[in-house]
């Protein structure tokens, strides 16, 4: 009986396709994008599906054009998104800064690949700092969600729009080529289940009963610009209530891995392998990268021996973990770069090496 029900609802989909299908079900008004591996399936999927299901899909002449189309459409109150990978996301930074300053909701998806430069098309997490620290000019942040499964690639589209619209702030889904390309079982969110109404600030023309709405990021008077900045900072403070994370076997852990996205999937395996060997190991997975789950990391720091941060980069989230730990316990790092993926075995080896260094006895009685 149960398998019958699953047959009906569950689909086997690529991460990129699940994300695009979820966006259609979130009733986006428009998608503007430019193809780049490893996320071209998103544009392809929209091109195939959107004409029959409502909404505009447009292949822009460049990523710079895409993000400015997003700026315009979001200003008019439309639910809009774009997607790209590292090199294209870099081109979008100017526009993102404008959108953040003008306080408009939108979704930007980064299916990361190995950099810097044109780099490689293999998966990477090398865009963490760009995503979480603003990326463009000025004091701003985008809300960053990091899925770790095809299911979350779909679900987080809804979450991203919900947050973006609640806080009038651009949101980003930061994922990678592996999650975009892999297939898993996914149960898609229900079509039209994300409420939508035209916001009162949208530039939809001037009716008699109110003043005209203006969307701009130019506030030439410094006093005025400072006010905008203060409002932004207040908003980011408020955003902290949206922190999300997931924990695996941390309650009795002596060693805690911190990893997001694909690395967190690999680290789940490390926890499984480590526990088989009697190592008291757990994992904390930040789901929102901005706002960062600093409180839980800080709380754990007081009761464990050390953290090991695992990323597919040279140590970017590592900085946020260290700030959260604030010197309470040691924070180590294991990373691979340039599109290479760490294997669970090599991470476990690192854990064992560190345990030896910290000379913590393995609890061999644990079966």
């Amino acid at each position, binding site marked *: 009986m149960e398998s019958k029900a699953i047959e009906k609802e569950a689909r086997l989909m690529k991460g990129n396709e699940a994300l695009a299908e979820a966006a259609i079900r979130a009733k986006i008004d428009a998608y503007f994008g430019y193809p780049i591996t490893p996320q071209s399936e998103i544009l392809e999927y929209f091109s195939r599906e959107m004409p029959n299901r409502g909404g505009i899909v447009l292949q822009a002449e460049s990523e710079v054009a895409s993000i400015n189309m997003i700026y315009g459409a979001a200003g008019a109150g439309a639910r809009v998104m774009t997607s790209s990978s590292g090199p294209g996301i870099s081109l979008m930074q100017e526009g993102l800064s404008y959108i953040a300053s003008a306080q408009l909701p939108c979704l930007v998806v980064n299916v990361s690949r190995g950099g810097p430069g044109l780099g490689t098309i293999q998966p990477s997490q090398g865009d963490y700092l760009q995503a979480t620290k603003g990326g463009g000019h000025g004091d701003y942040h985008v809300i960053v969600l990091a899925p770790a499964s095809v299911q979350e690639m779909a679900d987080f589209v809804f979450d991203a729009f919900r947050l973006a619209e609640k806080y009038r702030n651009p949101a980003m889904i930061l994922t990678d*080529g592996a999650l975009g390309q*892999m297939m*898993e079982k996914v149960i898609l969110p229900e079509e039209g289940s994300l409420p939508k109404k035209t916001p009162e600030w949208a530039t939809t023309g001037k009716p008699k009963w109110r003043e005209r709405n203006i969307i701009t990021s130019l506030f030439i008077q410094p006093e005025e610009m400072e006010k905008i900045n203060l409002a932004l900072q207040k908003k980011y403070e408020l955003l902290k209530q949206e922190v999300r994370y997931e924990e695996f076997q941390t309650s009795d852990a002596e060693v805690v891995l911190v990893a997001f996205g694909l690395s967190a999937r690999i680290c789940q*395996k490390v926890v499984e392998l480590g526990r088989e060997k009697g190592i008291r190991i757990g994992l904390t997975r930040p789901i929102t990268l901005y706002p960062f789950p600093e409180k839980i990391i800080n709380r754990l720091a007081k009761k464990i021996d050390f953290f090991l941060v695992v990323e597919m980069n040279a140590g970017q989230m590592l900085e946020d973990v260290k700030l959260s730990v604030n010197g309470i316990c040691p924070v180590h790092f294991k990373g691979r770069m340039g599109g290479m993926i760490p294997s669970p075995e090599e991470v476990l080896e690192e854990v064992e090496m560190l345990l030896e260094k910290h000379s913590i006895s393995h609890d061999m009685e644990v079966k």
Partner: protein
Amino acid sequence: MQQPHEIIFAGFGGQGILSMGQIIAYAAMIEGKEVSWMPSYGPEMRGGTANCIVIVSPVRISSPIITRFDSAIVLNQPSLDKFEPAVKPGGLILYEKSSIIKEPSRNDVEVLAIPALEEAQKLNKKQVANMILLGAFLEKRPLVNYDNILKALKKVLPERHHHLIPLNEQALLLGKQIATAENMTV
């Protein structure tokens, strides 16, 4: 099925490596199991070799990317060289006979050579060699119900190729028979 089963499918692009993996993944999903299908999409694919990792599990799958496998289904020599050492002791290496010059040397794993290309040519369609291998694999490791494989075939094969479903089914059955015969002789 108590344990996850971790499989690597590897060979040249165009041999149907990715679809073999998709069919098993789809069939397992129909049965309510957890599945993941991770393709190689990078430069190695453009250079000619393709592979995908499929995990079928009764419980939530942790890493979709792994380096040790319960089974390897191999369709060319470079893939055998690469993945032979990655098969767990007691695991299975199943390969296309005519595509391999240097046979696997390990004796702590089960090794099975299937003349899939030769048999596919007899069916006048060398493209179904992958289905013969898949049939043989499922005979050896019945991870999923055979009926669900047939359902999955309809999902994975693009509609324009649906007239080839009977031929694919024939190839799957042929593979099963070859593997059964091998069992007898061993």
